[in-house]
């Protein structure tokens, strides 16, 4: 290497440009290089410590404590103790605290940046220019939500004690994403940083105390998965927020099933990066650099699947190879490197072995000619061409600097390939044709779509996934909802009549009295717009309060659910594209036709429940009007992100929703769930309550006469818990709403792990006649998911 001025003058090489780690090491030294947990505003005595390693040098830089169940318990207790005062404090007081935290982050910006770099291995450029500024931005933004809390989240309060588990790829940024909204909402926090990267969280806790954050409001417990499990299982945690792998997310879902804990999960991804042939290819190349070689590709939303229009594939991959030769990898403290170290040797090994597997499967691997540093965990940028969608590399999340590429022929095929994954976190679409880009973006199943850009983040825009990439959003108004809960209604819900036990036997039991003299009406299942006989060929006897035989409903089974889900899936495309006006008109029409038969429905309800149904029918008609009204008003937003462009937060339907309707208010409860779902463009498979199904089977005739397209609402009667379980298990159901008892709800949450479908369960009775409890925005929020589409512009 040239080193004298004349030599360098001739070679024009880059030289070393190290950022000093002195101040960060001094901070570690000041703590004798050994840390306890930060609980109740103080450090605990270090215990059962493990090493924190700088992945770029493989050297131990500190020791931190392995959090035990007792440590977690102490932290939860501290958070619980701090909760009443914090939750009761005014939004303005919390805003002052968050503002102080934002300022403190900025005051100590370089300490955090360097600490993050030596702990995680990512380049100082990224920690200095991206991570830490975004951390400050998150606290500023959420200081604003705290200030506005009482007005913007009226009727709500902080969810309570929150357990947060964050990953190692953006240690402090993920802390900010989790802690800022929690504190703004009035929650207190127990946070477990990743075992590889605990240092910035500990520094943050210390600095937050100095900034005046009350003791116990933010507690940090370090440790590995066992510590995380203790936090997940802790009975006194009201909400859990997790960012990490889909596998661990699945475990957390299982562990919390039936607990009533609020849960948000931000999981893995295999995000498509779609390039059309009218894109600015030189800019695309830089987009790819930002997509997959940012943070060494250890980014949940990394654009790791490059989908390219067939005609430009060779040209683009050639340009990429040229660009890759120019990437610089090395000491992450060097201010002139593009890529730093992989977080840990085990991750490095995983990447290397996946790459090996890719080669063995026949994918073509290309890496730059230069070598990576021998010491420390480094992996070169890697491009795979000739990758089939079936290849392992095209399917699994690698979490490393490895890009796989394939071609498409048409926009339709691009969308199909983009969606050919269990994940749905993010996507990037490159085209200079606005018509094309804005057509494709909504069709990709992802929580974030970047048009002609990638990996842009801001506190004002929600981030989070579809499908197995998890649920819940972080950032923006949509993120705040994850940390609030409604203040319990002062009016106690009316006691719900306990559900009658249903006759165990499936065959019809002969009635003690002769059947009615009228013409027989046999309720059937309602699937794909047709009345269908149950696959089983059996029926279930329905009795009135005095045991009178009211009729028999079909004993639906898993095949009926399968058929119903198929019908719902088939109807989804057309229904979700229908205009809000159109959906609203149909809901009004349903109300109109129900109104015409109001007396008949009221009588039916009285026959089943013994209570006059007129009021319930009237409330049902009102409810239908409510969602007919909302159908064209549940608008998205344009977020104020710091780009020249717009960030559209679009409300998209969740998809196919399975609904287990409550026994309370047999007709109103059913309609209160189905109406918001379909108003927002979802299609549903609903099961009425077991004891009172007949009002719902009558209701399908109303649907039939009201222009509801076939397959939009499907009704399967039968043993409700069994049917709900089949729905929860079904991989083609996107969400399940369980309002029919705790046991069934727990089973649904457990079963939802299969495809990580969203669940919404009612853990306490609700007065459906009360509009404050039975309708409104909460229902609409559950019926939609927010997709943030970033559209920079400028010519």
């Amino acid at each position: 290497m040239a080193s004298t001025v004349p030599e360098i003058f001739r070679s024009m090489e880059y030289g070393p440009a190290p950022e000093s780690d002195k101040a960060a090491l001094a901070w570690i030294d000041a703590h004798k290089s050994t840390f306890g947990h930060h609980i109740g505003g103080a450090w605990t005595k270090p215990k059962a410590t493990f090493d924190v390693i700088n992945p770029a040098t493989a050297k131990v830089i500190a020791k931190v404590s392995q959090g035990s169940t007792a440590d977690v318990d102490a932290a939860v207790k501290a958070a619980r103790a701090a909760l009443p005062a914090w939750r009761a404090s005014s939004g303005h007081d919390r805003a002052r605290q968050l503002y102080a935290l934002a300022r403190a982050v900025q005051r100590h910006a370089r300490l955090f940046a360097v600490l993050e770099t030596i702990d995680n291995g990512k380049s100082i450029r990224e920690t200095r220019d991206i991570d830490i500024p975004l951390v400050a931005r998150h606290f500023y933004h959420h200081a604003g939500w705290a200030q506005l809390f009482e007005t913007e989240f009226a009727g709500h309060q902080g969810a309570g004690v929150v357990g947060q588990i964050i990953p190692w790829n953006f240690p402090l940024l993920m802390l900010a994403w989790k802690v800022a909204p929690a504190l703004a909402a009035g929650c207190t926090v127990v946070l477990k940083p990743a075992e590889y990267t605990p240092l910035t969280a500990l520094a943050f806790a210390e600095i937050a105390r100095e900034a005046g954050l009350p003791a116990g409001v933010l507690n940090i417990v370090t440790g590995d998965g066992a510590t995380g499990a203790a936090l997940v299982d802790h009975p006194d945690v009201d909400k859990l927020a997790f960012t990490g792998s889909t596998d661990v997310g699945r475990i957390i879902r299982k562990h919390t099933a039936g607990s009533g804990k609020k849960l948000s999960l931000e999981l893995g991804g295999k995000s498509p990066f779609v390039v059309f042939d009218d894109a600015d290819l030189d800019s695309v190349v830089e987009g790819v650099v930002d997509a997959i070689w940012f943070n060494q590709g250890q980014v949940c939303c990394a654009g790791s699947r490059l989908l390219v229009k067939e005609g430009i594939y060779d040209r683009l991959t050639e340009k990429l190879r040229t660009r890759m030769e120019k990437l610089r990898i090395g000491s992450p403290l060097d201010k002139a490197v593009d890529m730093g170290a992989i977080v840990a040797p085990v991750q490095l090994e995983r990447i290397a072995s996946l790459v090996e597997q890719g080669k063995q499967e026949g994918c073509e691997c290309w890496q730059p000619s230069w070598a990576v540093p021998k010491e420390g965990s480094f992996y070169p940028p890697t491009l795979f061409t000739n990758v089939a969608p079936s290849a392992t590399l095209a399917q699994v999340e690698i979490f490393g600097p490895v890009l796989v590429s394939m071609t498409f022929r048409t926009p339709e095929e691009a969308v199909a390939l983009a969606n050919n994954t269990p994940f749905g976190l993010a996507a990037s679409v490159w085209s200079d044709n606005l018509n094309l880009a804005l057509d494709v973006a909504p069709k990709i199943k992802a929580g974030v779509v970047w048009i002609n850009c990638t990996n842009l983040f801001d506190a004002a825009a929600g981030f989070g996934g579809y499908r197995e990439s998890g649920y819940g959003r972080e950032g923006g108004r949509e993120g705040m909802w994850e940390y609030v809960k409604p203040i319990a209604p002062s009016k106690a819900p009316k006691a719900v009549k306990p559900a009658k036990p249903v006759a165990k036997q499936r065959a019809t039991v002969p009635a003690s009295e002769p059947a009615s003299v009228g013409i027989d009406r046999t309720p059937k299942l309602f699937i794909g717009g047709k009345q269908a006989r149950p696959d089983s060929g059996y029926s279930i006897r329905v009795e009135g309060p005095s045991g009178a035989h009211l009729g028999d409903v079909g004993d639906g089974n898993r095949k009926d659910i399968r058929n119903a889900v198929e019908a719902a899936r088939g109807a989804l495309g057309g229904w979700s594209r229908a205009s809000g006006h159109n959906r609203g008109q149909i809901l009004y029409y349903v109300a109109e036709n129900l109104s015409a038969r109001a007396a008949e429905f009221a009588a039916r309800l009285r026959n089943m429940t013994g209570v006059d149904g007129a009021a319930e029918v009237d409330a049902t008609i009102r409810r239908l009007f409510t969602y007919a009204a909302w159908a064209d008003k549940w608008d998205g937003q344009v977020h104020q992100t710091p780009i020249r462009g717009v960030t559209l937060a679009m409300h998209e339907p969740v998809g196919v929703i399975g609904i287990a309707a409550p026994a309370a208010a047999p007709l109103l409860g059913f309609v209160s769930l189905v109406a918001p779902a379909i108003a927002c463009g979802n299609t549903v498979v609903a099961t009425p309550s077991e004891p009172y199904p007949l009002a719902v089977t009558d209701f399908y005739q109303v649907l039939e006469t009201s222009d509801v397209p076939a397959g939009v609402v499907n009704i399967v009667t039968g043993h409700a818990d069994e049917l709900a379980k089949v729905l929860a298990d079904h991989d083609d159901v996107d969400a399940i709403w369980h309002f029919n008892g705790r046991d069934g709800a727990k089973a649904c949450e457990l079963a939802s792990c299969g495809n990580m479908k969203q669940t919404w369960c009612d853990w306490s009775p609700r007065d459906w006649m009360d509009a404050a409890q039975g309708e409104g925005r909460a229902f609409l929020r559950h019926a939609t998911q927010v997709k943030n589409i970033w559209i920079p512009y400028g010519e």
Partner: protein
Amino acid sequence: MTITRANLHLAGADAVTPAHVRHEPPGEHVERNPGQPLDLDLVLAQHVNKSATERRAATIPTRRTVKKQWQAAWLLRAITLIDLTTLSGDDTPGNVRRLCAKAMHPLRPDLEALLGVESLHVTTGAVCVYHALVPTAVEALRGSGIPVAAVSTGFPAGLSPFSTRLAEVRESVAAGAREIDIVITRGHVLTGDWHALYEEVRAFREACGDAHMKAILATGELATLTNVARASMVAMMAGADFIKTSTGKEGVNATLPVSLVMTRMIRAYFERTGYAVGYKPAGGIRSAKNALEYLYLIKEELGDRWLRADLFRFGASGLLTDIERQLEHFATGRYAAAHRQPMV
């Protein structure tokens, strides 16, 4: 001379050119770009996404830096790339001679000694003046090997009669200018008259003869980056040896995003034809730090070969003084004052 439509390469007129053949960067000698027929397909295929280009441009200064002796060496290299320029209505033989003296000896001898770079014989890349001052500059620089560049063709607006613009080029060449910085008619770009632009630049190139031609696009007046890209491509097809951003008289002069677009066009042209065209950002580059940012951009986008004076120039006047101050700081460890550097 004029170009007839018959020898233009019209859109779709013949088979696809063998695009993107891999070419090695030029060696010591850069073969002059002879130009090529106007390929409208290629011109119109260029479109630039502004936001994405700006994002990339914004990270070039944050992804790269040079420190200590690397910085000193890079700044010395930057000096050799400067077209030391004066383009004022009040230029006289006196201040032009002073400029030339500075071009030949940009660094104080004591500073050169401190840096240990006497053997490099650092001079600026050229001296750039109006036509009237060309004889003075040629005389002052005689024997130094430093070329004189003349701005020409109705600089800065380029709206004088075509015949006088051509004559101006010929006269400057006759007066001894070895480089001619021509300006294009911005209206041709803004109206999309690529044929007219091509013919104009082609004619200037003919008039230049052996003198090298830098085509000033006046990017600050071209409205869009896509226009910048297309004008760059046309200028190179018409035989430009260099493409240059600005006259220094537009409201906005050289910027990193514009430079990114123009260097990418140079790369595309090189990949297609094998001819290396030079790049000259001009106007507004006053600090050493800013100059280094341009060098990072060139190194990243075009490669090291483009970091030499036959393929890269800064059009600047004040830049040199700031570089001197930074070099003095490197050599002495003390911050330097402008008044202690010999005046331009």
